């Protein structure tokens, strides 16, 4: 069974970083053979919204956000890696490694 993560990305303007971070995470996850669902909280609204089941399945949550995560009560009780939106754009593989390590703790 593959490892599974969930993530939320958000930046202040919600048009550039949010989606760059999403792409970077998905690409790195694919290369590392990890399944990841990424929710984007951008200017046009919430994309690929994570539902209750997704939250349950994800071993850890990555918050790659510069602003407040909307509806963050969904993730109550989960292990959360709280980082800047620019971190996955710089090195997404490290972010995923960190999230997996957090999940193993």
């Amino acid at each position, binding site marked *: 069974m593959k490892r599974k993560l969930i993530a939320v990305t958000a930046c202040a303007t919600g048009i550039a*970083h949010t989606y760059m971070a999403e792409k970077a995470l998905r690409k790195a996850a694919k290369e590392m053979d990890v399944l990841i669902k990424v929710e984007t909280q951008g200017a046009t609204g919430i994309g690929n919204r994570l539902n209750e089941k997704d939250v349950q399945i994800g071993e850890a949550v990555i918050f790659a956000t*510069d602003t407040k995560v909307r509806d963050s009560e969904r993730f109550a009780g989960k292990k959360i890696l709280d980082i800047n939106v620019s971190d996955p754009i710089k090195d997404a593989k490290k972010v995923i490694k960190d999230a997996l390590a957090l999940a193993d703790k």
Partner: protein
Amino acid sequence: MSKSFWKELEKHIMTGISYMIPVVIAGAVLMAISRIGASAFGISNIWDEKWATNSNAIIQFLHTDDGWGGLALGLMFPIISGFISYSIADKGGIAPGMIAGVLVANMNAGFLGALASGLIAGYTAKFMFDHIHLPEAMKSVVPVFLVPVLGSLITLILIQYVVGGPFAALNSGLASWLKSMTGVNKVLLAAIVGGMVGFDLGGPVNKAAVTTAMALLTSGVYDPNTAAQVAIIIPPIGLGLATIINNKKFSPELNEAGKASFIMGLIGVSEGAIPFAIESPLKVIPINVVGSALGSAIAVGLGAVNKAPISGFYGWFAVDNWPIYVLGIFVGSAFVTGATLLVRKNAVVEEDNSATEIDEDQDNDFSEEEWES
């Protein structure tokens, strides 16, 4: 502890700014439409009451529209204050934050006043949520009564009697100081604003400079806005041009990003330059800062005045002294292009590093069955 506190603080402020931006854009552009429209009739004070009863229906409308712009901009401080507070204390923070934000707007205590009221309201509300423990039957008294009423009252008292006055004085002092600036100081100011805008391409430093410049528009201070609007588009245009002139110096991804960046620059979005800043920040950021500062200094120093918060090309010709304005953009962009090409070596052609492709039209890269297995 202290480092994460500052990171939290930044997050709260960025959240407030992200909710404020659409309000500022709406208000400022409505106002710009009215003022640019009015200048076609040779009117320079469209906000004056006398135009409300003008025989020309278009002029009447332009006057009304200016008022709408003012209404929208009046929401700027309540919104940023309310959403900073929301970021800190969740839903319960919004009421005290917005109410105190209206007081900030009325007292003319400016951007700093709004930051203060948002933070005070948010932390007050959070403190109450965390520390007031009532018996189960009365629990709902906290969110429906105590936080809205006491939270607002405490914040309002602190804004009205403690921080509001000094910030209002600072704000009006700043506006009149900026208005009175001439010669070298004016050019220096433009260069500083330009440099701040070019520094992080839509990040906190950029947003602080741009929103302050836009807020000053309402006080009739135009130079910071002129500088900011010039600076916004210089990095994306300059870097885009560099990829077009010599694509050997960039990776295939950056060449793609360069075209998009150039177009985003023309329509006034500085974020197009971000991929370059991420790839080699130590080269790109100083060049952007100098290029933006240079362009802003030229435009403002030689007398261009942009009264609208519009940086895209469709706004260029509404600028007073527009040829000089365009010259500023051109020189700044040319500096970024030239300097970038000078410091970059030819890109190493990498072994097909795009082996991993993701389908951007899909939300996920696997099936629901695999996810749930």
